């Protein structure tokens, strides 16, 4: 074949979005799958409504996660990347995308984000892994908006004085 795999067009079947085509180069491979969903390793990001998007399985038409780009969380959300990991072959010089799974509950104010187990994607090879951060500051159910309410505010420690 003369065309590279990157130009290949794949057909995706989705219970949410129906049938559509994606470029093979934008497919994210998560060899180990997401925790609890082994065997589903091919995903695509569907940009839908910034900063939120869908992480949609190519192998299961009804498997999709609402995700948020971790870059939105600013300097406070910093952790060591899993360098040398065999799933992602992540090296120091690689560019990465970090996305977090979002639990959208019926009332949007109750929306939580899993900061504990982000999906790290190596943009060099589009391979990713859901990592588990050994850091008590990062909640599995970080409330996106409740912290803005007065009672939430009281629980938050003062930032360290510089």
């Amino acid at each position, binding site marked *: 074949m003369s065309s590279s795999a990157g130009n290949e067009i794949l057909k995706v079947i989705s219970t949410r979005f129906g049938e559509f085509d994606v470029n093979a180069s934008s497919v994210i491979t998560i060899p180990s799958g997401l925790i609890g969903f082994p065997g589903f390793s091919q995903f695509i990001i569907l940009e839908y409504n910034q900063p939120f998007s869908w992480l949609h399985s190519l192998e299961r038409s009804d498997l999709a996660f609402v995700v948020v780009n971790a870059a939105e969380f600013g300097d*406070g959300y910093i952790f060591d990347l899993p360098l040398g990991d065999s799933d992602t072959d992540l090296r120091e010089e690689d560019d990465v995308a970090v996305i977090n799974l979002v639990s959208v509950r019926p009332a949007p104010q109750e929306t939580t984000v899993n900061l504990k187990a982000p999906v790290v994607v190596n943009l060099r090879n589009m391979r990713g892994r859901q990592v588990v951060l050994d850091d008590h500051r990062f909640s599995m159910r970080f409330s996106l908006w409740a912290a803005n309410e007065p009672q939430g505010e009281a629980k938050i420690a003062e930032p360290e004085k510089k």
Partner: protein
Amino acid sequence: MLILTRKPGESVYIGDDIKVTLMEIKGNQVRVGVDAPSSVRIYREEIYLQILEENKSAALLSQDTKDLGEIATTWKKQKPTTLGKLKSDKGNTEKE
């Protein structure tokens, strides 16, 4: 379940490349060291089970989510202000 008795400093091999060492016993706590290839996932059980549940619940909730318009609008109107403070947010622990 295979049960083996080990003293501090002694190890057990699981296959050829996973080595579990009993490091230290202190009161009712035991420190365990695991040497394994990076492809082997090692989790504390309770954390692993919590993340498994959280992922499954996120997938289910996503099925009920019609579109992202509502949360995206909420985000624009009420952008989280505390995220930048996460670093010093010691009070932000798991709710489980």
